[in-house]
């Protein structure tokens, strides 16, 4: 009995000696249901791999990740953001695939003084005037994502381009971004219904217009439909297909050889030659049995970024300016290459030409074909009042 009491007393003492803030709570918001679910899963898996690589912690701090599904619905996003802030009392939120959800939850989260590391969606209003000191992105601004392909199309000597995108805001942003650096002529701009399954009509029109190349932005399942049908129409290889956010790590497994020969522009390629990326790709493949997409890369970077900042402040988030400065330093090695933050707290980063080619085993894979933009900043940072 006496021994037991002593043991109890010792354990109480031991508990008391532990630091008060034992755990950092992180809210993870992404789309985990519906057609966008594959993207959310990639984001989440990579973030958890980032925690694994940091020794099951971030910056030496124990973390608890609370995963929530926004269902691609802005109103659901707001609900879960409130729940994470008010009930779970998270100190950090990360994730978010889609811009409409991002637009809805950005303000409630940053107004509450909660740090928000966006790892995908980058709607333009948040890049410019609407930037926040509590918001950091490890991804890009929506239309700067499409600027590299405009530049690349110019560099490749294409004079007449036919462009297609879905008829919604991100589709129009994509075409605007493309046009900003494309010097040739756009012979037609076609906007199709969102989630349209069949593109035979549009593809026949495009081929009949005899352009030098076709540029498309068709994320998710739309991209699979378009690229397959483009190849089945016998155009791939004859009429160059340029794309961004269409053939990526999440869609290539469903398109496979129908994408061979496609040219894409991307902030990431799985074959980027840096040690941190080699480790990331190898372990991602080992753990989840697939090649990481750029979504995954950005989310892994978010984990690395948080780890670096928490290490600098030793897990202290009470002094917000200090933690913000620690984030802003971006003291980590991004798997996507050079990475630093602009004044609007969006990255200044490289964009690559990434082609779909056969790898050593004869399987279609992404191959980095050089840098299109080195240390590229978006067009809106000057409108952001932050210093």
């Amino acid at each position, binding site marked *: 009995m006496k021994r037991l009491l002593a043991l109890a007393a010792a354990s109480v003492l031991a508990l008391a000696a532990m630091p008060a803030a034992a755990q950092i709570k992180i809210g993870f918001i992404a789309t*985990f*249901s*519906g*057609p966008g*679910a*594959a993207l*959310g*899963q990639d984001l989440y898996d990579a973030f958890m791999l980032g925690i694994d690589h940091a020794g099951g912690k971030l910056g030496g701090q124990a973390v608890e990740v609370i995963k929530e599904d926004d269902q691609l619905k802005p109103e659901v996003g707001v609900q879960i953001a409130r729940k994470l802030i008010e009930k779970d009392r998270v100190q950090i939120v990360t994730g978010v695939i889609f811009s409409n959800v991002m637009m809805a939850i950005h303000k409630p989260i940053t107004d509450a003084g909660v740090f928000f590391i966006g790892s995908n969606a980058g709607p333009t209003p948040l890049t410019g005037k609407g930037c926040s000191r509590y918001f950091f992105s490890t991804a890009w601004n929506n239309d700067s994502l499409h600027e590299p392909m405009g530049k690349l199309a110019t560099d490749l000597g294409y004079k007449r381009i036919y462009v297609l995108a879905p*008829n919604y805001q991100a589709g129009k942003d994509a075409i605007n971004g493309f046009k900003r650096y494309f010097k040739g002529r756009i012979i037609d*701009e*076609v*906007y*199709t*219904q969102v*989630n*349209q*399954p*069949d593109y*035979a*009509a*549009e593809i*026949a*029109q495009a*081929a*009949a217009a005899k352009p030098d190349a076709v540029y498309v932005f068709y994320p*998710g*399942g*739309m991209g*699979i*439909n378009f690229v*397959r*049908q483009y190849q*089945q*129409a*016998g*155009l791939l290889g004859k009429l160059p297909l340029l794309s961004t956010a269409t053939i990526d790590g*999440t*869609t290539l*497994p*469903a*398109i*496979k*050889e*129908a994408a061979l020969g496609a040219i894409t522009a991307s902030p990431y390629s799985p074959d980027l030659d840096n040690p941190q990326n080699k480790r990331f790709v190898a372990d991602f493949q080992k753990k989840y049995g*697939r090649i990481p997409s750029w979504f995954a890369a950005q989310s892994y970077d978010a984990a690395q970024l948080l780890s670096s900042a928490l290490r600098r402040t030793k897990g202290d988030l009470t002094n917000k300016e200090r933690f913000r400065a620690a984030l802003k330093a971006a003291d980590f090695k991004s798997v996507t290459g050079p990475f630093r933050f602009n004044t609007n707290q969006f990255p200044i980063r490289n964009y690559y030409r990434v082609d779909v080619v056969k790898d050593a085993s004869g399987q279609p894979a992404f191959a980095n074909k050089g840098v299109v933009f080195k240390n590229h900043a978006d067009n809106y940072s000057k409108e952001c009042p932050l210093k």
Partner: protein
Amino acid sequence: MTSSLFFTQLLNGLQLGILLFLLSAGLTLVFGIMNFVNLAHGSLYMMGAYFAAAAYRWSGSFIVAGLIAVPATLALGLAVERVALARLYSRDHLDQVLTTFGLILIFNEVVRFVWGSAPVYMNVPSALAGTVSLFGLPYSAYRFAIIAVGLAVGAGLYLLIHRTRIGMLIRAGAANGAMVAALGVNIRLLNSLVFGLGAALAALAGLMAGPIFAVQPGMGEPILILTLVVIITGGIGSIRGAFYGALLVGVVDTVGRAFLPGILREFFERAIAQAAGPAIASMLIYLLMAVVLALRPKGLFPVKHG
């Protein structure tokens, strides 16, 4: 606009129509004969596509994929009909909509659970991977195959409905189910048969669509909407209506999408045409449906009663 391009677009419309026909034929029978609103028809199409993709990956053969996917979906359809739907035939349409909508959600989650959220891979059979030259414009050989399969199914259904005893009962059931039952026909068995036929046709559509469209959770919903437009335009319960309705919807949709933006540009400024073109093109089939309903409330080829 050249005539060969116009011809290609007509062919594209025909092919989309044929694919829609495979789906609508089953749905219109279930709707017309059993007076049952089956929103889960799109889910059967999705299951057909997934079974086909899985069988294709396992066997590497498109034919084997079809031989597995169609019977598997048929069995699944019959099981669902027996377990969940048969007791709803006498109920209100709203109850049927609620239940079959629930089935959509269940099937989508089951698919996600088994195959994951990411779209799965399926390719055209290598014999049909190439293109056929049509007046100098290449056309996908696989899409020709879809047209051939669809026409064969259409002919088969025509023979089944108009030349066999079962077909006679189906037609009679569509015209007056209560009277058929009163004459001693096992209407329960007939219902199962019709539902199973619908499921098998949905699976065939899923198989044919697998290499063209992304095989992913929720793939049945956008196509179900088109299918509903088809059967309402064609006349509910009529296979002939489904056939012509599908071709009409396919051609109007395709030709509208292809040429309307260009035509609008002749009359309006570029910016207006660019904004209005896709919006109007995507509305065209609904306008078509509205016009048909205004002129012929029972659709183009209504089932004759009495």
